[in-house]
Protein backbone atom coordinates (compact mmCIF):
# COMPACT_ATOMS: atom_id res chain seq x y z
CA UNK A 1 0.00 0.00 0.00
CA UNK A 2 2.67 2.44 1.00
CA UNK A 3 4.71 1.38 -1.98
CA UNK A 4 1.77 2.22 -4.21
CA UNK A 5 1.53 5.61 -2.57
CA UNK A 6 5.21 6.24 -3.05
CA UNK A 7 4.87 5.39 -6.70
CA UNK A 8 2.05 7.85 -7.14
CA UNK A 9 3.77 10.66 -5.32
CA UNK A 10 6.83 10.08 -7.50
CA UNK A 11 4.66 10.09 -10.59
CA UNK A 12 2.90 13.28 -9.56
CA UNK A 13 6.20 14.99 -8.91
CA UNK A 14 7.43 13.81 -12.27
CA UNK A 15 4.32 15.07 -14.04
CA UNK A 16 4.48 18.28 -12.03
CA UNK A 17 7.89 19.10 -13.48
CA UNK A 18 6.55 18.48 -16.95
CA UNK A 19 3.56 20.72 -16.42
CA UNK A 20 5.73 23.40 -14.88
CA UNK A 21 7.93 23.42 -17.97
CA UNK A 22 4.85 23.61 -20.17
CA UNK A 23 3.28 26.38 -18.09
CA UNK A 24 4.62 29.41 -20.01
CA UNK A 25 3.48 27.89 -23.26
CA UNK A 26 0.09 26.94 -21.83
CA UNK A 27 -0.54 30.48 -20.59
CA UNK A 28 0.59 31.96 -23.87
CA UNK A 29 -1.43 29.50 -25.88
CA UNK A 30 -4.68 30.08 -24.07
CA UNK A 31 -4.28 33.86 -24.05
CA UNK A 32 -2.85 34.51 -27.50
CA UNK A 33 -4.05 31.58 -29.59
CA UNK A 34 -6.82 29.58 -27.94
CA UNK A 35 -8.95 32.49 -26.84
CA UNK A 36 -8.64 34.55 -30.05
CA UNK A 37 -9.29 31.52 -32.24
CA UNK A 38 -12.30 30.50 -30.17
CA UNK A 39 -13.62 34.02 -30.23
CA UNK A 40 -13.31 34.30 -33.97
CA UNK A 41 -15.04 30.95 -34.38
CA UNK A 42 -17.86 32.25 -32.20
CA UNK A 43 -17.93 35.41 -34.29
CA UNK A 44 -18.30 33.48 -37.50
CA UNK A 45 -21.67 32.17 -36.26
CA UNK A 46 -22.83 35.63 -35.31
CA UNK A 47 -23.75 38.88 -36.86
CA UNK A 48 -21.29 41.21 -35.20
CA UNK A 49 -21.81 44.91 -35.06
CA UNK A 50 -19.49 47.40 -33.49
CA UNK A 51 -21.42 49.89 -31.39
CA UNK A 52 -20.34 52.50 -28.91
CA UNK A 53 -20.41 50.08 -26.01
CA UNK A 54 -18.46 47.27 -27.61
CA UNK A 55 -19.49 44.40 -29.85
CA UNK A 56 -23.15 43.48 -30.35
CA UNK A 57 -23.75 39.84 -31.19
CA UNK A 58 -26.71 38.31 -32.92
CA UNK A 59 -26.67 34.53 -33.31
CA UNK A 60 -27.23 33.54 -36.94
CA UNK A 61 -25.86 30.01 -37.02
CA UNK A 62 -24.40 29.01 -40.34
CA UNK A 63 -25.94 31.99 -42.12
CA UNK A 64 -22.55 33.67 -42.61
CA UNK A 65 -21.09 30.59 -44.26
CA UNK A 66 -24.14 30.25 -46.49
CA UNK A 67 -23.82 33.86 -47.54
CA UNK A 68 -20.14 33.44 -48.37
CA UNK A 69 -20.86 30.42 -50.54
CA UNK A 70 -24.03 31.51 -52.32
CA UNK A 71 -24.29 35.29 -52.28
CA UNK A 72 -20.73 36.46 -52.43
CA UNK A 73 -19.65 36.57 -56.05
CA UNK A 74 -16.03 37.47 -55.47
CA UNK A 75 -14.67 35.48 -52.57
CA UNK A 76 -15.29 31.83 -53.60
CA UNK A 77 -13.86 32.51 -57.05
CA UNK A 78 -10.86 34.28 -55.59
CA UNK A 79 -10.33 31.43 -53.18
CA UNK A 80 -10.46 28.84 -55.93
CA UNK A 81 -8.13 30.73 -58.24
CA UNK A 82 -5.67 31.21 -55.47
CA UNK A 83 -5.77 27.53 -54.61
CA UNK A 84 -5.26 26.55 -58.23
CA UNK A 85 -2.26 28.83 -58.44
CA UNK A 86 -0.81 27.48 -55.23
CA UNK A 87 -1.30 23.88 -56.32
CA UNK A 88 0.88 24.72 -59.29
CA UNK A 89 3.45 26.77 -57.41
CA UNK A 90 4.05 24.51 -54.44
CA UNK A 91 5.36 21.56 -56.49
CA UNK A 92 7.48 23.98 -58.49
CA UNK A 93 9.01 25.43 -55.34
CA UNK A 94 9.72 21.94 -54.10
CA UNK A 95 11.30 20.82 -57.36
CA UNK A 96 13.35 23.98 -57.68
CA UNK A 97 14.65 23.88 -54.14
CA UNK A 98 15.38 20.16 -54.42
CA UNK A 99 17.34 20.75 -57.58
CA UNK A 100 19.30 23.68 -56.20
CA UNK A 101 20.06 21.86 -52.98
CA UNK A 102 21.35 18.91 -55.03
CA UNK A 103 23.73 21.26 -56.82
CA UNK A 104 24.78 22.95 -53.59
CA UNK A 105 25.42 19.62 -51.95
CA UNK A 106 28.25 18.81 -54.36
CA UNK A 107 31.78 19.27 -53.15
CA UNK A 108 32.76 22.33 -55.08
CA UNK A 109 35.49 24.85 -54.42
CA UNK A 110 33.92 28.10 -53.26
CA UNK A 111 30.89 26.30 -51.95
CA UNK A 112 30.50 28.45 -48.87
CA UNK A 113 30.33 31.62 -50.94
CA UNK A 114 27.74 30.10 -53.25
CA UNK A 115 25.72 28.91 -50.29
CA UNK A 116 25.83 32.35 -48.76
CA UNK A 117 24.23 33.78 -51.88
CA UNK A 118 21.56 31.12 -51.99
CA UNK A 119 20.47 31.68 -48.43
CA UNK A 120 19.93 35.40 -49.01
CA UNK A 121 16.19 34.86 -49.56
CA UNK A 122 15.95 33.66 -45.99
CA UNK A 123 16.74 37.23 -44.99
CA UNK A 124 14.60 39.18 -47.40
CA UNK A 125 11.72 36.99 -48.36
CA UNK A 126 9.61 38.02 -45.41
CA UNK A 127 10.07 41.70 -45.71
CA UNK A 128 8.29 44.77 -46.88
CA UNK A 129 11.51 45.50 -48.74
CA UNK A 130 10.92 42.62 -51.10
CA UNK A 131 7.41 43.83 -51.89
CA UNK A 132 8.90 47.20 -52.63
CA UNK A 133 11.44 45.70 -55.01
CA UNK A 134 8.79 43.69 -56.82
CA UNK A 135 6.65 46.79 -57.05
CA UNK A 136 9.53 48.39 -58.91
CA UNK A 137 9.78 45.46 -61.26
CA UNK A 138 13.23 44.54 -60.03
CA UNK A 139 12.12 41.02 -59.34
CA UNK A 140 11.08 40.20 -62.89
CA UNK A 141 13.04 37.53 -64.62
CA UNK A 142 15.29 39.61 -66.83
CA UNK A 143 15.46 37.31 -69.81
CA UNK A 144 11.70 37.10 -70.38
CA UNK A 145 11.39 40.69 -71.48
CA UNK A 146 14.82 40.80 -73.04
CA UNK A 147 14.23 38.02 -75.52
CA UNK A 148 10.51 38.63 -75.82
CA UNK A 149 9.77 35.16 -74.54
CA UNK A 150 6.10 36.08 -74.10
CA UNK A 151 5.56 36.31 -77.83
CA UNK A 152 7.66 33.25 -78.59
CA UNK A 153 5.77 31.08 -76.13
CA UNK A 154 2.40 32.33 -77.33
CA UNK A 155 3.32 31.60 -80.91
CA UNK A 156 4.62 28.10 -80.33
CA UNK A 157 2.25 26.47 -77.91
CA UNK A 158 -0.98 28.25 -78.60
CA UNK A 159 -2.84 30.59 -76.31
CA UNK A 160 -4.55 27.96 -74.18
CA UNK A 161 -1.35 26.44 -72.82
CA UNK A 162 0.59 29.68 -73.02
CA UNK A 163 -1.63 31.48 -70.52
CA UNK A 164 -0.96 29.31 -67.46
CA UNK A 165 2.65 28.85 -68.52
CA UNK A 166 3.26 32.58 -68.66
CA UNK A 167 1.43 32.97 -65.41
CA UNK A 168 3.86 30.59 -63.78
CA UNK A 169 6.83 32.31 -65.40
CA UNK A 170 5.68 35.63 -64.00
CA UNK A 171 5.50 33.92 -60.62
CA UNK A 172 9.00 32.54 -61.10
CA UNK A 173 10.28 35.21 -58.80
CA UNK A 174 8.06 33.97 -55.99
CA UNK A 175 9.30 30.46 -56.61
CA UNK A 176 12.87 31.69 -56.42
CA UNK A 177 12.43 33.79 -53.33
CA UNK A 178 10.28 31.42 -51.38
CA UNK A 179 12.61 28.48 -51.55
CA UNK A 180 15.27 29.71 -49.14
CA UNK A 181 14.32 27.73 -46.05
CA UNK A 182 13.37 24.76 -48.20
CA UNK A 183 16.88 24.60 -49.67
CA UNK A 184 18.30 24.70 -46.15
CA UNK A 185 16.09 21.84 -45.03
CA UNK A 186 16.94 19.73 -48.07
CA UNK A 187 20.67 20.24 -47.62
CA UNK A 188 20.32 19.25 -44.00
CA UNK A 189 18.37 16.23 -45.18
CA UNK A 190 21.19 14.99 -47.40
CA UNK A 191 23.44 14.74 -44.38
CA UNK A 192 21.18 12.08 -42.89
CA UNK A 193 21.89 9.63 -45.72
CA UNK A 194 25.12 7.93 -44.83
CA UNK A 195 28.03 7.96 -47.22
CA UNK A 196 28.63 4.24 -46.90
CA UNK A 197 25.34 3.49 -48.64
CA UNK A 198 26.53 5.37 -51.71
CA UNK A 199 29.85 3.59 -51.59
CA UNK A 200 28.18 0.22 -51.33
CA UNK A 201 25.89 0.84 -54.25
CA UNK A 202 28.78 2.10 -56.37
CA UNK A 203 30.76 -1.02 -55.71
CA UNK A 204 27.72 -3.01 -56.74
CA UNK A 205 28.00 -1.22 -60.07
CA UNK A 206 25.19 1.31 -59.94
CA UNK A 207 25.53 4.44 -62.02
CA UNK A 208 25.13 7.82 -60.30
CA UNK A 209 21.80 8.12 -62.08
CA UNK A 210 20.56 4.94 -60.49
CA UNK A 211 21.92 5.80 -57.09
CA UNK A 212 19.97 9.06 -57.21
CA UNK A 213 16.68 7.30 -57.87
CA UNK A 214 17.29 4.35 -55.60
CA UNK A 215 18.97 6.02 -52.63
CA UNK A 216 18.78 9.79 -52.61
CA UNK A 217 15.17 10.29 -53.60
CA UNK A 218 13.58 7.67 -51.34
CA UNK A 219 15.72 8.85 -48.46
CA UNK A 220 14.53 12.39 -48.99
CA UNK A 221 10.80 11.69 -49.02
CA UNK A 222 10.27 12.71 -45.38
CA UNK A 223 12.01 15.99 -46.09
CA UNK A 224 9.98 16.58 -49.19
CA UNK A 225 6.90 16.14 -47.02
CA UNK A 226 8.29 18.47 -44.37
CA UNK A 227 9.08 21.07 -47.00
CA UNK A 228 5.66 20.71 -48.59
CA UNK A 229 4.07 21.46 -45.23
CA UNK A 230 6.38 24.38 -44.61
CA UNK A 231 5.70 25.79 -48.08
CA UNK A 232 1.94 25.46 -47.70
CA UNK A 233 2.00 27.24 -44.36
CA UNK A 234 4.42 29.88 -45.57
CA UNK A 235 2.44 30.75 -48.67
CA UNK A 236 -0.99 30.61 -47.11
CA UNK A 237 -0.30 32.64 -44.02
CA UNK A 238 1.54 35.21 -46.08
CA UNK A 239 -0.30 38.43 -45.18
CA UNK A 240 -0.11 39.94 -48.64
CA UNK A 241 -1.98 37.28 -50.53
CA UNK A 242 -5.20 38.36 -52.24
CA UNK A 243 -7.54 36.21 -50.16
CA UNK A 244 -6.22 37.74 -46.98
CA UNK A 245 -6.74 41.20 -48.42
CA UNK A 246 -10.39 40.50 -49.13
CA UNK A 247 -10.91 39.14 -45.64
CA UNK A 248 -9.27 42.18 -44.17
CA UNK A 249 -11.34 44.58 -46.24
CA UNK A 250 -14.55 42.83 -45.25
CA UNK A 251 -13.70 43.13 -41.58
CA UNK A 252 -14.07 46.87 -41.64
CA UNK A 253 -16.98 47.13 -44.05
CA UNK A 254 -20.29 47.74 -42.30
CA UNK A 255 -22.45 45.63 -44.67
CA UNK A 256 -20.37 42.53 -44.13
CA UNK A 257 -18.91 43.04 -40.71
CA UNK A 258 -16.57 41.07 -38.59
CA UNK A 259 -18.73 37.97 -38.31
CA UNK A 260 -18.88 37.58 -42.06
CA UNK A 261 -15.13 38.14 -42.42
CA UNK A 262 -14.51 35.54 -39.74
CA UNK A 263 -16.58 33.04 -41.66
CA UNK A 264 -14.46 33.76 -44.72
CA UNK A 265 -11.24 33.36 -42.77
CA UNK A 266 -12.46 30.09 -41.28
CA UNK A 267 -13.35 28.64 -44.65
CA UNK A 268 -9.87 29.53 -45.80
CA UNK A 269 -8.35 27.92 -42.74
CA UNK A 270 -10.34 24.72 -43.27
CA UNK A 271 -9.14 24.53 -46.86
CA UNK A 272 -5.54 24.87 -45.69
CA UNK A 273 -6.04 22.14 -43.12
CA UNK A 274 -7.51 19.94 -45.82
CA UNK A 275 -4.49 20.53 -48.06
CA UNK A 276 -2.05 19.86 -45.24
CA UNK A 277 -3.90 16.71 -44.37
CA UNK A 278 -3.53 15.55 -47.96
CA UNK A 279 0.20 16.34 -47.94
CA UNK A 280 0.72 14.51 -44.67
CA UNK A 281 -1.25 11.51 -45.89
CA UNK A 282 0.74 11.24 -49.13
CA UNK A 283 4.07 11.56 -47.31
CA UNK A 284 3.02 9.07 -44.69
CA UNK A 285 1.88 6.55 -47.29
CA UNK A 286 5.04 6.79 -49.37
CA UNK A 287 7.20 6.41 -46.28
CA UNK A 288 5.20 3.44 -45.05
CA UNK A 289 5.67 1.76 -48.38
CA UNK A 290 9.39 1.95 -47.82
CA UNK A 291 8.85 0.32 -44.49
CA UNK A 292 9.22 2.40 -41.40
CA UNK A 293 8.48 5.92 -40.30
CA UNK A 294 11.18 8.00 -38.77
Amino acid sequence: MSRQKGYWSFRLKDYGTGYLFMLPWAIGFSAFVGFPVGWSLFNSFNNVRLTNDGFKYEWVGLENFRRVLTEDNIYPIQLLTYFQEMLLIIPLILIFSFFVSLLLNQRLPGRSLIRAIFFLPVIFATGQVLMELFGQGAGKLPFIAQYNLDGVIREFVGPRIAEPLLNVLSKAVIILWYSGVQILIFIAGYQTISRSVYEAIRIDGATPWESFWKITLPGMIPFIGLNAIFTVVDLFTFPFNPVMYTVRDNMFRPQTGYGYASAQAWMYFLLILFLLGAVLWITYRSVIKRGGFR
Partner: protein
Amino acid sequence: MRITEGYYQVKMNIRQYMQSRQAGRVKKVLLGQNLNDGWLAKVLIYFLLAVIAFLYLQPLFYMMSTMVKSVSDLIDPVVQWIPRKLHGQNLADAWRGLHYPEAFTNTLVIALSCSLLQVISCAITGYALARLRFPGKAAAFILIIITFMVPPQITIIPMYTIFGKLGWLNTPLVFIIPAMFAQGLRGALFIIIFRQFFLTQPKALEEAAKMDGASAYRLFFRIMLPLARPAIIVVFLFSFIWYWNMYYEPSMFLNKEFLPLSLRLNLMQQELMGNSAINFNAGVGKDPISEGPKMAAAFLIILPPLIIYTFTQRWFSEGIERTGLVE
Protein backbone atom coordinates in the same frame (compact mmCIF):
# COMPACT_ATOMS: atom_id res chain seq x y z
CA MET B 1 42.90 2.17 -103.68
CA ARG B 2 45.48 4.21 -101.89
CA ILE B 3 42.93 6.61 -100.61
CA THR B 4 40.85 3.89 -99.04
CA GLU B 5 43.95 2.39 -97.52
CA GLY B 6 44.94 5.74 -96.03
CA TYR B 7 41.47 6.21 -94.73
CA TYR B 8 41.55 2.79 -93.14
CA GLN B 9 44.87 3.63 -91.50
CA VAL B 10 43.51 6.82 -89.98
CA LYS B 11 40.44 5.03 -88.76
CA MET B 12 42.52 2.39 -87.06
CA ASN B 13 44.69 5.05 -85.48
CA ILE B 14 41.68 6.78 -84.04
CA ARG B 15 40.28 3.53 -82.74
CA GLN B 16 43.58 2.65 -81.16
CA TYR B 17 43.78 6.03 -79.53
CA MET B 18 40.27 5.77 -78.18
CA GLN B 19 41.15 2.55 -76.41
CA SER B 20 44.49 3.78 -75.11
CA ARG B 21 45.09 4.73 -71.53
CA GLN B 22 45.59 8.36 -72.38
CA ALA B 23 42.12 8.69 -73.76
CA GLY B 24 40.81 6.99 -70.70
CA ARG B 25 42.42 9.69 -68.62
CA VAL B 26 40.92 12.44 -70.76
CA LYS B 27 37.54 10.84 -70.44
CA LYS B 28 37.95 10.52 -66.71
CA VAL B 29 38.90 14.16 -66.35
CA LEU B 30 35.98 15.29 -68.46
CA LEU B 31 33.27 13.01 -67.20
CA GLY B 32 34.65 11.75 -63.95
CA GLN B 33 34.04 8.55 -62.12
CA ASN B 34 30.99 9.86 -60.39
CA LEU B 35 28.41 12.06 -61.95
CA ASN B 36 29.72 15.04 -60.06
CA ASP B 37 33.49 15.03 -60.19
CA GLY B 38 34.16 15.40 -63.91
CA TRP B 39 35.08 18.75 -65.38
CA LEU B 40 32.12 18.79 -67.71
CA ALA B 41 29.70 18.28 -64.85
CA LYS B 42 31.48 20.88 -62.74
CA VAL B 43 31.30 23.50 -65.47
CA LEU B 44 27.62 22.76 -65.93
CA ILE B 45 26.92 22.98 -62.20
CA TYR B 46 28.82 26.23 -61.89
CA PHE B 47 26.99 27.65 -64.85
CA LEU B 48 23.58 26.77 -63.43
CA LEU B 49 24.48 28.05 -60.00
CA ALA B 50 25.83 31.28 -61.46
CA VAL B 51 22.61 31.89 -63.39
CA ILE B 52 20.43 31.31 -60.35
CA ALA B 53 22.75 33.31 -58.11
CA PHE B 54 22.47 36.18 -60.53
CA LEU B 55 18.69 36.04 -60.28
CA TYR B 56 18.97 36.23 -56.52
CA LEU B 57 21.46 39.05 -56.48
CA GLN B 58 19.85 41.08 -59.22
CA PRO B 59 17.28 42.86 -57.01
CA LEU B 60 20.04 43.67 -54.57
CA PHE B 61 22.22 45.16 -57.29
CA TYR B 62 19.25 47.01 -58.70
CA MET B 63 18.57 48.50 -55.30
CA MET B 64 22.14 49.60 -54.79
CA SER B 65 22.48 51.11 -58.24
CA THR B 66 19.15 52.94 -58.12
CA MET B 67 20.03 54.27 -54.71
CA VAL B 68 22.92 56.35 -56.01
CA LYS B 69 21.25 57.58 -59.18
CA SER B 70 19.99 61.12 -59.53
CA VAL B 71 16.59 61.78 -61.16
CA SER B 72 18.18 62.67 -64.48
CA ASP B 73 20.05 59.37 -64.46
CA LEU B 74 16.85 57.50 -63.67
CA ILE B 75 14.96 59.06 -66.57
CA ASP B 76 17.83 58.61 -68.98
CA PRO B 77 17.32 55.31 -70.80
CA VAL B 78 21.02 55.11 -71.64
CA VAL B 79 21.96 54.72 -68.00
CA GLN B 80 21.24 51.18 -66.96
CA TRP B 81 23.32 49.95 -64.07
CA ILE B 82 26.10 52.42 -63.47
CA PRO B 83 25.05 55.99 -62.74
CA ARG B 84 26.92 58.94 -64.27
CA LYS B 85 27.93 60.17 -60.84
CA LEU B 86 27.27 59.07 -57.31
CA HIS B 87 24.31 60.88 -55.89
CA GLY B 88 24.11 60.90 -52.11
CA GLN B 89 20.90 62.88 -51.81
CA ASN B 90 18.69 59.78 -51.93
CA LEU B 91 20.33 58.27 -48.90
CA ALA B 92 20.00 61.51 -46.96
CA ASP B 93 16.33 61.76 -47.93
CA ALA B 94 15.71 58.18 -46.91
CA TRP B 95 17.52 58.70 -43.60
CA ARG B 96 15.20 61.59 -42.79
CA GLY B 97 12.09 60.02 -44.28
CA LEU B 98 12.49 56.86 -42.25
CA HIS B 99 13.37 58.79 -39.07
CA TYR B 100 16.14 56.27 -39.17
CA PRO B 101 17.77 56.54 -35.72
CA GLU B 102 14.41 56.37 -33.94
CA ALA B 103 12.85 53.66 -36.11
CA PHE B 104 16.07 51.70 -36.01
CA THR B 105 16.08 51.69 -32.21
CA ASN B 106 12.41 50.66 -32.12
CA THR B 107 12.98 47.78 -34.50
CA LEU B 108 16.12 46.73 -32.69
CA VAL B 109 14.40 46.76 -29.29
CA ILE B 110 11.53 44.62 -30.58
CA ALA B 111 13.65 42.21 -32.59
CA LEU B 112 16.35 41.72 -29.99
CA SER B 113 14.19 41.37 -26.89
CA CYS B 114 11.59 39.21 -28.61
CA SER B 115 14.07 36.84 -30.19
CA LEU B 116 15.95 36.40 -26.92
CA LEU B 117 12.76 35.71 -24.99
CA GLN B 118 11.56 33.41 -27.70
CA VAL B 119 14.76 31.38 -27.55
CA ILE B 120 14.30 30.80 -23.83
CA SER B 121 10.57 30.13 -23.79
CA CYS B 122 10.63 27.90 -26.85
CA ALA B 123 13.61 25.97 -25.51
CA ILE B 124 11.77 25.27 -22.26
CA THR B 125 8.66 24.08 -24.10
CA GLY B 126 10.66 22.08 -26.60
CA TYR B 127 12.58 20.38 -23.80
CA ALA B 128 9.39 19.47 -21.98
CA LEU B 129 7.96 17.97 -25.15
CA ALA B 130 11.10 16.01 -25.90
CA ARG B 131 12.14 14.70 -22.50
CA LEU B 132 9.62 15.15 -19.70
CA ARG B 133 6.73 12.81 -19.09
CA PHE B 134 3.23 14.04 -18.47
CA PRO B 135 -0.26 13.15 -19.69
CA GLY B 136 -1.49 15.26 -22.58
CA LYS B 137 1.89 15.70 -24.21
CA ALA B 138 0.72 14.46 -27.61
CA ALA B 139 -2.29 16.77 -27.48
CA ALA B 140 -0.03 19.73 -26.67
CA PHE B 141 2.21 18.87 -29.59
CA ILE B 142 -0.74 18.72 -31.97
CA LEU B 143 -1.96 22.08 -30.67
CA ILE B 144 1.48 23.53 -31.36
CA ILE B 145 1.45 22.25 -34.92
CA ILE B 146 -2.00 23.71 -35.45
CA THR B 147 -0.83 27.04 -34.02
CA PHE B 148 1.76 27.13 -36.75
CA MET B 149 -0.95 26.90 -39.40
CA VAL B 150 -3.50 29.41 -38.13
CA PRO B 151 -3.64 32.30 -40.59
CA PRO B 152 -2.99 35.60 -38.82
CA GLN B 153 -6.29 37.04 -40.04
CA ILE B 154 -8.26 34.75 -37.78
CA THR B 155 -6.69 36.00 -34.60
CA ILE B 156 -5.77 39.55 -35.42
CA ILE B 157 -9.01 41.31 -34.43
CA PRO B 158 -9.51 39.44 -31.15
CA MET B 159 -5.87 40.14 -30.32
CA TYR B 160 -6.35 43.78 -31.17
CA THR B 161 -9.29 43.95 -28.78
CA ILE B 162 -7.37 42.15 -26.03
CA PHE B 163 -4.33 44.36 -26.41
CA GLY B 164 -6.56 47.41 -26.50
CA LYS B 165 -8.25 46.39 -23.22
CA LEU B 166 -4.85 45.84 -21.63
CA GLY B 167 -3.59 49.16 -22.93
CA TRP B 168 -0.63 47.64 -24.71
CA LEU B 169 -1.34 49.00 -28.17
CA ASN B 170 1.44 51.14 -29.61
CA THR B 171 3.96 49.80 -27.14
CA PRO B 172 6.49 47.03 -27.77
CA LEU B 173 4.66 44.94 -25.14
CA VAL B 174 2.34 43.56 -27.85
CA PHE B 175 5.29 41.57 -29.15
CA ILE B 176 7.35 41.06 -26.03
CA ILE B 177 4.64 39.44 -23.90
CA PRO B 178 3.61 36.77 -26.45
CA ALA B 179 7.28 36.04 -27.11
CA MET B 180 7.79 35.55 -23.39
CA PHE B 181 5.08 32.88 -23.43
CA ALA B 182 6.38 31.08 -26.52
CA GLN B 183 3.70 32.52 -28.80
CA GLY B 184 5.84 34.97 -30.73
CA LEU B 185 6.29 35.15 -34.46
CA ARG B 186 6.43 31.53 -35.69
CA GLY B 187 7.04 30.41 -32.13
CA ALA B 188 5.51 27.03 -32.92
CA LEU B 189 8.18 26.34 -35.51
CA PHE B 190 10.91 27.14 -33.01
CA ILE B 191 9.36 24.88 -30.40
CA ILE B 192 9.43 22.07 -32.94
CA ILE B 193 13.08 22.80 -33.78
CA PHE B 194 14.05 22.66 -30.09
CA ARG B 195 12.02 19.50 -29.56
CA GLN B 196 13.78 17.78 -32.44
CA PHE B 197 17.14 18.93 -31.15
CA PHE B 198 16.62 17.68 -27.62
CA LEU B 199 15.35 14.38 -28.95
CA THR B 200 18.71 13.76 -30.62
CA GLN B 201 20.71 14.33 -27.43
CA PRO B 202 21.92 11.21 -25.62
CA LYS B 203 19.77 10.23 -22.67
CA ALA B 204 22.71 8.96 -20.63
CA LEU B 205 23.79 12.51 -19.86
CA GLU B 206 20.55 13.30 -18.13
CA GLU B 207 20.49 10.03 -16.27
CA ALA B 208 23.98 10.69 -14.96
CA ALA B 209 23.03 14.17 -13.79
CA LYS B 210 19.85 12.86 -12.16
CA MET B 211 21.87 10.18 -10.42
CA ASP B 212 24.08 12.90 -8.99
CA GLY B 213 20.99 14.55 -7.60
CA ALA B 214 20.44 17.43 -10.01
CA SER B 215 16.87 18.71 -10.09
CA ALA B 216 15.05 19.00 -13.41
CA TYR B 217 15.57 22.78 -13.49
CA ARG B 218 19.26 22.56 -12.77
CA LEU B 219 19.57 19.84 -15.33
CA PHE B 220 17.88 21.97 -17.94
CA PHE B 221 19.60 25.28 -17.32
CA ARG B 222 23.04 23.92 -16.51
CA ILE B 223 23.37 21.02 -18.90
CA MET B 224 20.77 20.88 -21.64
CA LEU B 225 20.57 24.58 -22.51
CA PRO B 226 24.34 25.02 -22.93
CA LEU B 227 24.34 21.87 -25.06
CA ALA B 228 21.69 23.32 -27.33
CA ARG B 229 23.96 26.02 -28.68
CA PRO B 230 23.55 25.19 -32.38
CA ALA B 231 19.77 25.16 -32.05
CA ILE B 232 19.82 28.38 -30.05
CA ILE B 233 21.87 30.14 -32.69
CA VAL B 234 19.59 29.05 -35.51
CA VAL B 235 16.42 29.99 -33.64
CA PHE B 236 17.84 33.32 -32.54
CA LEU B 237 18.98 34.30 -36.02
CA PHE B 238 15.75 33.31 -37.72
CA SER B 239 13.67 34.89 -35.03
CA PHE B 240 15.66 38.11 -35.15
CA ILE B 241 15.39 38.43 -38.90
CA TRP B 242 11.68 37.58 -39.00
CA TYR B 243 10.96 40.12 -36.29
CA TRP B 244 13.07 42.66 -38.09
CA ASN B 245 11.16 42.19 -41.33
CA MET B 246 7.62 41.73 -40.03
CA TYR B 247 5.10 44.13 -41.38
CA TYR B 248 1.57 42.90 -40.98
CA GLU B 249 1.41 42.67 -37.19
CA PRO B 250 2.99 46.05 -36.47
CA SER B 251 0.70 47.63 -39.05
CA MET B 252 -2.19 46.57 -36.81
CA PHE B 253 -0.72 47.05 -33.36
CA LEU B 254 1.87 49.81 -33.67
CA ASN B 255 0.35 52.29 -36.06
CA LYS B 256 0.62 55.41 -33.94
CA GLU B 257 3.74 55.15 -31.85
CA PHE B 258 6.84 53.04 -31.71
CA LEU B 259 6.87 52.60 -35.47
CA PRO B 260 9.37 50.05 -36.75
CA LEU B 261 11.32 50.49 -39.98
CA SER B 262 8.96 48.45 -42.16
CA LEU B 263 6.04 50.76 -41.33
CA ARG B 264 8.15 53.85 -41.78
CA LEU B 265 8.99 52.66 -45.27
CA ASN B 266 5.31 52.41 -46.07
CA LEU B 267 4.59 55.87 -44.67
CA MET B 268 7.48 57.33 -46.58
CA GLN B 269 6.18 55.82 -49.76
CA GLN B 270 2.76 57.36 -49.23
CA GLU B 271 4.36 60.73 -48.52
CA LEU B 272 6.45 60.58 -51.65
CA MET B 273 3.46 59.57 -53.74
CA GLY B 274 1.45 62.46 -52.34
CA ASN B 275 4.15 65.07 -52.76
CA SER B 276 5.27 64.40 -56.27
CA ALA B 277 2.75 66.38 -58.26
CA ILE B 278 4.09 65.09 -61.52
CA ASN B 279 3.58 61.39 -61.28
CA PHE B 280 5.12 59.75 -64.28
CA ASN B 281 3.19 56.70 -65.38
CA ALA B 282 1.59 56.29 -62.00
CA GLY B 283 0.11 52.88 -61.45
CA VAL B 284 2.99 51.13 -63.10
CA GLY B 285 4.82 51.78 -59.90
CA LYS B 286 7.95 53.10 -61.51
CA ASP B 287 8.17 56.73 -60.66
CA PRO B 288 11.60 58.21 -61.16
CA ILE B 289 11.28 60.84 -58.46
CA SER B 290 10.45 58.55 -55.58
CA GLU B 291 12.33 55.53 -56.82
CA GLY B 292 15.76 56.66 -55.67
CA PRO B 293 14.80 57.50 -52.07
CA LYS B 294 12.65 54.38 -51.81
CA MET B 295 15.48 52.11 -52.85
CA ALA B 296 17.82 53.96 -50.50
CA ALA B 297 15.34 53.39 -47.68
CA ALA B 298 15.03 49.73 -48.55
CA PHE B 299 18.79 49.46 -48.49
CA LEU B 300 19.01 51.13 -45.08
CA ILE B 301 16.45 48.65 -43.75
CA ILE B 302 18.14 45.51 -44.98
CA LEU B 303 21.64 46.71 -44.14
CA PRO B 304 21.67 45.54 -40.49
CA PRO B 305 20.37 42.01 -41.21
CA LEU B 306 22.76 41.84 -44.15
CA ILE B 307 25.72 42.71 -41.91
CA ILE B 308 24.62 40.15 -39.34
CA TYR B 309 24.18 37.63 -42.11
CA THR B 310 27.68 38.09 -43.51
CA PHE B 311 29.10 37.26 -40.10
CA THR B 312 26.77 34.42 -39.26
CA GLN B 313 25.94 32.78 -42.57
CA ARG B 314 28.14 29.84 -41.66
CA TRP B 315 25.87 29.11 -38.72
CA PHE B 316 22.77 29.46 -40.82
CA SER B 317 23.81 26.72 -43.16
CA GLU B 318 25.71 24.51 -40.77
CA GLY B 319 23.55 25.15 -37.75
CA ILE B 320 20.48 23.70 -39.39
CA GLU B 321 22.40 20.58 -40.22
CA ARG B 322 23.45 20.25 -36.63
CA THR B 323 20.15 21.07 -34.94
CA GLY B 324 18.78 17.68 -35.83
CA LEU B 325 15.76 19.43 -37.28
CA VAL B 326 15.87 16.71 -39.84
CA GLU B 327 16.13 13.54 -37.83
